């Protein structure tokens, strides 16, 4: 694939596992931002797991994307030739002290300071090079010492390889940072690996870094890691303490927390979508004075035109719009459809979203539809154009277990379609309103608990079976989105940030 290349650009966008290869909320947002700022040129670094995990780009590249490079973390790195080397004792003492700081949340700041000093040493001939990490006696002694001091898992071999594979991407990112084209400012859309890359770039080139976080990366990773089956636990029945998670799990969680705090530490602007997430960022170490909220916004006129196309009474059609992946908890929606179909046999449940990301989960969902005898009531539509879909549906459903500020709800509202959503992310604020004034606009649908199919069904039936209640919700949604969640508001906030960072002088 031929990607555009350039010598320099205005904004360097650092994207991990999203635009342009993955469709979804964050990717559409990135697309919206790039197209919303034609006056700036963008250079994109895409960081993925391995090329096989992604198909063709899902988005056409806007014209103002002048540079795109892709990097894959699981790709085998050209490891330096194996030969024993001497590590620099002083540097390793520093690394040791830095890890000591990373162990406790209070001293993360001191750890960040030490990391900053180590960044230039990550280069191939540096004192903290990949070679020194892999082949020096000092690195080996360090790993051994830490194992003896802290590891509660009996296997040293697993510990050793966990440490190695966990740290390897750091040098890969350092390499990307060294070769990236010069830009006026960096903008990362998550912490994690992309966030670390942002931090490395900022410290290396002394250009401002903006962080926009849709979910809380560290938190999502943590939840994943709690469940992950690939992490070993070799403790025997006597060693196992049921209240303590396996040491390797703890290591991974701490690793991502450290990545997150590096990024918060380096960012000049830390943007959350809503207040609860902003507070969470501060709790995780983001300096409060650099944080702010910028909610998502939608192109209201584009969706307002759809209101005319709608039938008078609410059509008994529920639609979940989103990728068919576990985090959307589509199974709860399918289960709720069982109850809905029992009481409203003509009701239809649509699932509109790409199904290529997690084929296993798609199969589980189809099996569930089968098992519950819902083949006549549920339809998997695949990816759909929102403008064609929204006029036909009566309710937008969101059964996710985790969300940020979902665009689909806003787009639904703008088109006059109320929503039933789980109580995640900022959904409560979108449906019921945030402050006094906002709440006065009324409820644009209903909020139910996560993984509660019965409640989801009851709430949907309440809205669908009473045209008056439905109409009121529809109007409240339209008013709310027109007042608080327009694209113009969002662009205005980002414009002021972009102006600040691109004109910043070192």
């Amino acid at each position, binding site marked *: 694939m031929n990607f555009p290349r350039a010598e320099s650009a205005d904004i360097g966008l650092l994207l991990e596992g999203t635009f342009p290869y993955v469709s979804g909320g964050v990717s559409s947002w990135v697309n919206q931002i790039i197209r919303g700022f034609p006056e700036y040129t963008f250079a994109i670094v895409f960081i993925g797991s391995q090329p096989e995990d992604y198909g063709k780009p899902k988005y056409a590249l806007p014209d103002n994307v002048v540079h795109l490079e892709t990097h894959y973390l699981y790709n085998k790195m050209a490891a330096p030739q194996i030969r024993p080397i001497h590590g620099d004792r002083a540097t390793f003492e520093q690394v040791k002290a830095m890890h000591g700081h990373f162990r406790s949340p209070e001293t993360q700041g001191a750890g960040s300071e030490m990391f900053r000093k180590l960044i230039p040493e990550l280069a191939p001939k540096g004192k903290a090079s990949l070679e020194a990490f892999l082949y020096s006696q000092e690195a080996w002694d360090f790993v051994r010492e830490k194992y003896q001091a802290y590891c509660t898992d009996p296997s040293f071999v697993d510990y050793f390889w966990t440490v190695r594979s966990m740290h390897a991407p750091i040098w890969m990112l350092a390499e990307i940072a060294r070769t990236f084209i010069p830009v006026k400012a960096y903008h990362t859309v998550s912490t994690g690996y992309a966030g670390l890359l942002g931090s490395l770039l900022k410290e290396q080139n002394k250009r401002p870094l903006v962080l926009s976080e849709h979910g809380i990366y560290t938190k999502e990773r943590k939840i994943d890691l*709690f469940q992950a089956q690939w992490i070993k636990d070799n403790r025997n029945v006597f060693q196992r*303490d049921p*209240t*303590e998670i396996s040491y390797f799990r703890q290591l991974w969680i701490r690793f991502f927390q450290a990545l997150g705090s590096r990024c918060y530490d380096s960012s000049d602007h830390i943007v959350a979508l809503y207040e609860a997430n902003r507070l969470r960022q501060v709790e995780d170490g983001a300096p409060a004075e650099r944080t702010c909220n910028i909610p998502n916004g939608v192109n209201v006129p584009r969706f307002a035109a759809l209101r005319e196309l709608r039938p008078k009474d609410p059509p008994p059609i529920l639609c979940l719009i989103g990728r068919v992946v576990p985090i959307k908890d589509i199974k709860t929606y399918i289960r709720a459809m069982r109850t809905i179909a029992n009481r409203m046999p003509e009701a239809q449940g649509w699932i509109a979203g790409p199904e290529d990301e997690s084929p296993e989960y798609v199969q*589980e969902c189809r099996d*569930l539809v089968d098992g519950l005898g819902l083949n006549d009531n549920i339809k998997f539509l695949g990816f759909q154009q929102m403008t064609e879909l929204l006029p036909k549906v009566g309710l937008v459903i969101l059964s996710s*277990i985790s969300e940020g500020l979902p665009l689909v709800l806003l787009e639904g509202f703008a088109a006059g379609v109320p929503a039933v959503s789980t109580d995640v992310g900022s959904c409560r604020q979108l449906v019921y309103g945030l402050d006094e004034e906002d709440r006065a606009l009324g409820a644009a649908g209903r909020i139910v608990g996560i*993984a509660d199919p019965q409640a989801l069904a009851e709430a949907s039936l309440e809205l669908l079976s009473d045209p008056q209640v439905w109409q009121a919700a529809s109007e409240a949604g339209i008013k709310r989105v027109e007042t608080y969640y327009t694209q113009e508001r969002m662009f205005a906030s980002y414009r002021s940030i972009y102006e600040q960072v691109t004109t910043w002088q070192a």
Partner: protein
Amino acid sequence: MIKYVFLAAAFLLEISSLDYLFKTQSGDDLLAWCLLLHGAGSALQAAFIWPFVPPTFRQPRLPMLALLFNFAFFMPLIGLLGVVIAFLIANFRRRAVVRHPFASLPLPEYVLSMRETDHQFSQGGIKSRLAQTSIPTPKRLQSLLALQGMPARVSSPLLQDMLGDASDDIRLVAYGLLDSREKTITAQIHQELEKFRQAGSNELRLICLRRLAELYWELVYAGLAQGDLRTHSLKQALSYIESAAQLGGEDSGLLFLKGRIHYELKLPDEALRFMQQAVAYGLPESRVLPYITQIAFDRKDFKKVRELLGRISTDQVTPFMKSIINFWVEPQQTPPPAENHGKRALI
């Protein structure tokens, strides 16, 4: 091949060194030349011998080469001859030494734990810790993770409660735990259905049907299905039992399960009937007594409760159940609150 070149060169060097030595003139220069040539010759001899050295003696390499050189230098001719003989003997003797790849080691110390762990939770402890939102989230998360080690039937209701928790982390972990349990059972159901489709004989089909009924029951018993889905699972289990019965596979176990399902479906009369049938088919009475007692209690037939509980041997029950039995069965001064003189024989 190269080693023979070494040998020839060594020979030439030694000859020329001897030549210097026996020259009629004398002087420091000549001796130095002689020693230098002899030294070079000795080095070449050591190099010549090296390939013949048995591999076990080649480490450490440098000191070993130095030793060979010394023999050649300080004891010309005899030295290397001696070395060759020494190697021959050593090589011969080495065969006599049997190397054991596995040696026996002393038993390791019996380590109970790598670190002292303090077990601070009991079941009640976890419940109250989870319910108190004032406790910091990491601590509550720990309690939540401890639920993993408990039977699903006990922990599922607690996990369900946690789905509504204010903390995102707690909610998501609780969801993950419930989801993975549900997923395990659903996956088993699908496996069993597949097996059923492929089963070639009625016997195999019966095994599958029984497993399917049990798995659907497990979804309910483990607290993983609520509301309409719970009813759906129960009915599904029943339908598999019916299919098994049609294949002539109805036995005491399935009848007992049928009784329990009917009880959960709030059909106590049918539940009782199937439990009785199960006993008639040979199920020990002690298995059904707790359920029948529960039905009697629901009907407020307390006299019956006392009579039925009296039949349960206190040796076979948990301490918790034991105290219940003791409460009901021990002779009391006052009669229990209400009595129903109706049906006498429930079984």
